[in-house]
């Protein structure tokens, strides 16, 4: 489980540097059945891995920027605090990855029971 988490998080992070935003689904699709997780665990691990990868990435950027931009964008979107933007960032990446990982696990399950 931990290995899956690490594989997804690292790969999602690096793929995102060269590919468009949706690239975070690729590690989950690729590794999603490798450790025979249940679909629910697959979703949770896939979600947490990219949630962490994206929110840490955003946190580092935000820190280096001294929060100048996140404060403005938070106001644009009518949210109170900059950390909410970081959370939204993590959730968007996490949910997409979680669904991808779960989809792959469900596919593997269906194949196995055929």
């Amino acid at each position, binding site marked *: 489980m931990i290995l899956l988490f690490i594989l997804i998080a690292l790969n999602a992070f690096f793929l995102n540097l060269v590919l468009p935003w949706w690239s975070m689904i690729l590690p989950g699709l690729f590794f999603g059945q490798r450790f025979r997780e249940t679909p629910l665990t697959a979703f949770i691990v896939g979600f947490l891995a990219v949630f962490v990868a994206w929110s840490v990435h955003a946190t580092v950027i935000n820190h280096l920027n001294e929060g100048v*931009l996140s404060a403005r964008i938070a*106001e644009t979107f009518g949210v109170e605090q900059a950390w909410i933007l970081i959370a939204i*960032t993590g959730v*968007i990446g996490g949910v*997409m990855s979680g669904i991808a990982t779960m989809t792959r696990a469900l596919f593997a399950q269906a194949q196995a029971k055929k």
Partner: protein
Amino acid sequence: MNYLKFALSLALGVILFWVLQTRWGNIPPMGPFMDPDEGFWANAESSESASSDFSIDGLKDSVQVYFDDRRVPHVFAQNDYDLYYMQGYLQARDRLFQMEMQTYDAAGRLSEIIGPSLLERDKQTRRWGMVYGAEQAVAEVQKHEPSWTIFEAYSAGVNAFISSLEPQDYPLEYKLIDISPEPWTPLKTALLLKNMTRTLAAGNSDVAHSNTLAYFGEEFMEQFFDRDYDLLDPVIPSTRVWDFDRVPVEAPDTLFVPRQAKSVNPFPVPEGIGSNNWAVSGEKTASGYPILSNDPHLRLTLPSIWYEMQLHAPGVNTYGVTLLGAPGVVIGFNEQVAWGVTNVASDVLDWYEIQFQDERLEAYWHDKQWKQTTKRVEEYKVRGQGLVTDTVVYTHHGPVTQVQAGNEEEAPVYHAMRWIAHEPSNEIRAFYQLNRAQNYHDYVEALTHYQAPAQNFVFASQDGDIALWVNGRFPNKWDGQGRTVSDGTDPLYDWQSWIPREHHPHIKNPPRGFVSSANQESAAPDYPYYMDDVYAPFERGRRINDRLSDLDNITKEDMQELLMDNYSYHASEILPEMLGWLERDSLGGVALEIADSLGAWNFYNEAEYRSPSVFRNWWYELSRGILSDEYDAQVPLRFPARDRLMQQLKESPNFWMVDNMTTDRVESIEEITTQAFLGAIEALSEQYGDWSDAWDWGWVMDNHVPHLTQTNGLGTDALYSGGGAESVNATRGTSGPSWRMIVELGPELKAWGVYPGGPSGNPGSSNYDSMVEAWRTGQLYELKFYRKAPTNDDVKWSIYP
């Protein structure tokens, strides 16, 4: 069963992908927008760029760019082509979105990127012939080879930057709106200049003036709109002798009476657009050399309308502020001379009532014959809606707009517009030559290429000359021509000729030792030509002239103080009278206290005073009380200017409009003034609570700088500061001094400046609003004007072709 679960999960993923990939209303596609590598996070700048060496295709030779401690770029090029190429490159790098947005607006293309909500604005833009005018300008520029080269070099530089961008590098606003940059063209530069003409030289009240004349009669118009009363202090002083005979112009015997119309100006000029400039001669300065000062008042936005630069190449070394999208320095100086601008409110936009032969709008009556129209089909690729077309009819006057008749059952009225923006012109050539001017002669020659928007060009040189030309292209009109809607069938209403350049109001080295302008009338009533009757009220111009007359041994600090001068001539002229009319016996408690504090006020619009807030509201209520009952028509009417109404009240306080027509009794000025006073206190209490510091003018005036697109979060907070529309420091809400500059000429030319913004257009940069606080508090930065390439610790780019 298991495949069904898989299929559902897959479908959920696909749907979510689609939701996150799509723009919903004004919400950007959240997937790409929140992506930490490619979305808005990528615009969060983390560090200053360091010195670097790199190459850009398209340069002819190597170029160095130095960024000083305020990140102002100083370009050192080997030839003109590279100089303007780099200007384009750097402006795009810092302000690309602004450049594109301004030209989308000027081209009537906003609906392409925003959607149907802006289609009406776009149609108005095209019906005003903005693109037509820009095309005329491009054709004119192409006739002058050196100018065309600059346009092309500039465009190539912008495009070199655009082509270096990947989607993650796009400025933040592109990601918010979900669009990509498109290539720059010389037409866009022309459009940008036409946009300035629309901002500064599209003011007109022809329809309202005609309606008002029909409603109130001639005597009223003379009383309130003919401008020759004592307080006026024109740009060119009344001592100037006009030793020429005017070029004659034939006027109609009787003034045309148009059909009443409800035309609403779609691009109203917000009050607060205006400017100050002045130059004092060496006889009045401590250094013995002239000092020049300028602060153009415009709508304030982030990013700022201006971009500060130094441009150095063989034959030119100039510094100042540039417009985003136009090559050259617009307001600034070089080693020998300095110049600045304020707007001239001459009437260069007139409306003509057109008689068409029939509904096909193919022929119109003019000069006793039917003349053919031309038609221009305008296409709009509206985002989310597809192609929309609109046919605009052109007469020899210009494009035709259909307006609503005064009475809704009547057939519509057609108005053709004659506008200076449609004349072929090449303003960039004027700036190109000004940037290189060595003396008064060069300055005058440069100005001959400048047509619109007309400006008061103030000038000072190291030779010791000071001068001011009211400069632009002005139609030679008969008295009052174009104040009202004109007769489109009668050639006597056409613009028959132009005022010859040598007859323009201008002055050089006047005996009083200074020249100045503040958008007031260009010359005294004895000036032989009619230019307009709508100019800025007298207050700023008179205050500047008063101060400059009084001052001697002038230093930069004196000029800085005058730029920040908050004195209100308006209040000092009328407040004592208003307090005199106030029925104190009927006041109680706080109202009496407020009246007393007004009596002790020194007439300065300082941020920490409450009196300016009370006075402004009181004056507003008083004007409304006097005018609103008489101004009760179903068509747009023209209101007397602030200073004109004030003058009328001083001369005869109980003139006929003071009485409230809707009551049976005759009200006196005392009653109306007291009602207005109580009304003002009530209005302020409602908005700001009890009489307290919350009434401070600094808050009530509500100075702040919003983002160009008014997007929340991308502008500044409230900027507590003094000033006022009638003060030299003409801040007012979201318009005001967009660039404050002082230049002290001499062997060691020194200059200072500030604008309410920063060099970067990126809201994720600390340089986005880095000068706002200095601007708010009236500080100026000393400008680093390098005579030769510096050897300091500036960030340096060495760029190779």
